[in-house]
């Protein structure tokens, strides 16, 4: 699908960068004039995906790289792809179940994918053990002023 504007960035999988990532995505998405609630939803969903990459993908080893691509698509749709080259997920269905956590000792709620799913319009997860995980989310902005797309 034709991209009207695009942001790409990559950064080490350090937990400090969780805030940077969600802030950067939302600053870019602000071009579509989202409501406060739409932006908060996007911020939360991105935070979950990046945190998953830090905690699960790279198991808190900060040498890995997380790549983020944001695209503004026609009809005021925001596309966000968050990819890591970490350990991957053996059973995506299990990982996406609410309250299931791949790191039970770390007091993780096991709600990352549930939040991503609930706060965006579509969520796709592709993963292969040893290769990494890519999460793709789309969110339609309903209160756009129309000037960007």
């Amino acid at each position, binding site marked *: 699908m034709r991209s009207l504007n695009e942001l790409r960035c990559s950064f080490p999988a350090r*937990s*400090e960068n*969780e*805030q940077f990532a*969600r802030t950067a995505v939302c600053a870019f998405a602000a071009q579509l004039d989202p409501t406060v*609630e739409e932006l*908060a*939803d996007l*911020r*939360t969903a991105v*935070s*979950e995906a990046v*945190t998953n990459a*830090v*905690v699960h993908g790279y198991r808190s080893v900060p040498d890995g790289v997380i790549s983020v691509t944001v695209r503004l698509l026609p009809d005021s749709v925001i596309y966000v792809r968050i990819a890591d080259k970490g350990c991957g997920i053996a059973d995506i269905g299990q990982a996406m179940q609410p309250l299931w956590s791949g790191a039970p000792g*770390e*007091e*993780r*709620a096991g*709600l*990352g994918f*549930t*939040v991503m799913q*609930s706060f965006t319009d579509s969520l796709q997860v592709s993963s292969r053990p040893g290769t990494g995980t890519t999460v793709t989310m789309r969110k339609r902005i309903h209160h756009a002023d129309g000037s960007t797309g």
Partner: protein
Amino acid sequence: MTELKAEPGRLTVLLEGELDHHRMRDIRETVDQAVHEQLPGVLVLDFRRVTFMDSSGIGLIMGRWHLLEEYGGVLEIHNPAPQIRKVLRLSGADRLAVIRSYAACGTGKEQAHEIAQ
């Protein structure tokens, strides 16, 4: 900075800023140390200065709920902003704790009401 306020039988934690996985370890250590020292009957997590929370905050709430349950303490969540309330509802954490909002009316008289679920 996470501020703590101890009163008889009650410990209030004034959380601030963006609550994510990165900040959770420090917050958890601060809260747990104070809870272990005081064993408060009521632990209040006050979100009035919190501008963002993802599911890492749910981990914090669920963990503290378990900690309090060990000795019969009660958990209260105060003043969550709409975004935070949405994450609480989604997680079901709003069933583990009493959630209250205090109207900031500036009269010094605070009014409590339960948030409609």
